[in-house]
């Protein structure tokens, strides 16, 4: 490589480095740092509000709250793990209208294309005694809040 080639390579390399660096820097601004989305921690009410052994659907939060007399409280997500439609409650468990996925009461996939069971979310008690569901924190199925 003679001097001329070396300088030309150097020139092109710095040119492209500058271009790529600048584009990358500008592109970073497309990745939001602050989200103006509603919090995904929901206060859903006092434990006494939930009837025993009944599933309470919360359509706005897309959650199903269970008050199991033996195990306690737990919350299952109502968002289909296939492509994000909202599931509905049926006799056998849950059903997604978009592509017909079926889940049992614990959220396990029974049929259809859903690749994962419906997630369970952390349920805890707030200081004022209300139940709080954190839809940002998945827990292992079977994790409950004993009351």
């Amino acid at each position: 490589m003679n001097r001329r080639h070396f300088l030309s390579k150097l020139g092109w390399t710095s040119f492209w480095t500058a271009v790529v660096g600048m584009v990358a820097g500008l592109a970073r601004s497309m990745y939001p740092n602050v989200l103006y989305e509603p919090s995904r921690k929901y206060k859903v009410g006092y434990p006494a509000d939930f009837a025993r052994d009944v599933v309470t659907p919360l359509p706005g939060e897309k959650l199903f709250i269970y008050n199991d007399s033996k195990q306690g409280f737990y919350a299952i997500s109502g968002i289909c793990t296939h492509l994000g439609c909202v599931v509905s409650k049926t006799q056998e468990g849950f059903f997604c209208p978009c592509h017909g996925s079926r889940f049992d009461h614990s959220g396990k996939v029974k049929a259809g294309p859903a690749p994962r069971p419906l997630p369970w979310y952390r349920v805890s008690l707030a200081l004022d005694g209300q139940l709080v569901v954190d839809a940002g924190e998945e827990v292992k199925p079977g994790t409950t809040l004993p009351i």
Partner: protein
Amino acid sequence: MGNRKSHGMMQEFWRNARALPGNVWRSTIRHGPLDTDLDRAEVMNQNFFLHILPVSVHRNTLRFSYSLGLGAIAFILFLILIGTGIILMFYYVPAVDQAYPRMKDLEFVVSNGKLLRNLHRWAAHGMVAVVFLHMCRVFYTGSFRPPREFNWVVGVVLFFLTLGLSFTGYLLPWDQLAFWAITVGTNIVAYLPGVGKQLRFLLLGGNEVGQEALIRFYVLHIAILPVLALIVLGVHFWRIRKDGGLSRPEEAESPLVSMTATPASRDPAGGSLQIFPADPRKTYGLMELVKGRTPMVDRGPEDTLTAWPHLVFRLFTLSLLTLVIFLIVSLFFDAPLKELANPNFPENPAKAPWYFLGLQELVSYSAFMGGVFIPTLTVVALMLIPYIDRGPAGTGVWFHSRRARKIALLSAILTTAVIWLLLFANMRTGGVRRFYPDSPQWLIDLLNPGTLTVLYLVVFFFIAGYLTDSLREASIGLFTGFLIGFTLFTVIGVFLRGPNWEFYWFWQSWPAP
């Protein structure tokens, strides 16, 4: 002296003033009636807009039965979309609480607003269909052969840009269709291994389909994708010119050149006729610099016509027809608009626009396969076609040979049969999970009508290639299979899927919700 001069000045002034209209006319239009071939040739160089066209075109290019005018129609639709789109931008506001009412305004308040929206929507549908058909035309006439390989790749990119434009346009009315199409669409993106989740986050500008997503899709729709499309379109047109215009059969090109390209068995005297051998570098062809061909003595001018009026007239007629047809359609059929987006309840069935329903059908078996693997495979396979199937035979002729036609037909029938068989087998048995409830996800991704159809197509390609010993015929079979598969899955998705994505025949009515 001064007196005389001013007198002369006045004279000149009046003379020029009188000649003003004529001079303005001549300076802008720059030519009189085009009576001679020289005039007709010159106008193509003088006029900025006509300059995109060559001065003279081969007869074969003008044959409607060859090109079907599909590329031109696609471009005309693109222009209609730009025109209507710009006017729509005056009324549209990309905010979640305004977008939908603005649609209603267009429908009820703005003069001809409904027509505008209809035209925009139907032209978009039309463009997707026409671009796809254009791709089929180019494939079946073998027009992607060297030196046009790269332009085929550019064309594939344009096809996906068209789809991207349609998809981003769908979100903007913020109705139920929009909301759930974007929810499902971006969740498909999330299945991309590795980067999927981040990509979805980036597309939506957050975790949920909301204001940020709307504005992002808006900018993509009105700025980024159209500009990209225009640039790539420019490259596409440029390459057409540089690759020597539309493809045509070798024989139509020049007897001299074709002798050199075909085996001597065709014409034993062929070798002695190599006066002007094909030159791999550049030479003049059709009055401009193109790659790979030498001038044709005598033959050239005989087989070409001046672009003005032959090509220009055809293009204008085509534009007029396209415009009229889409105008009529828009006058009689309204663009769909569902209820206001409701994030809590998807429609049942929640269907994407028709050109994505084939994909949605595949996705309903397996999101990863239907949403990521099969589309990626399709893109890669499409782009590789011109680099795999390179033989010169059959370029510029529909279907290459009689046997290729037969293979295409066979492939069409077989693919139809295979798909129906798989579909019914899947419905009757209830799929893998019925036999084996705890089956791992990969088994479900593998054993479903979508993946198995793709597997069948690959097997078909190699068997057909082995039996015919012809790459071209095998790839015609494969492409036909892909075409039929795509069409069939689309038809199933559009017409045969009802609530809960269950199967209903045309004549079966859906249960009341």
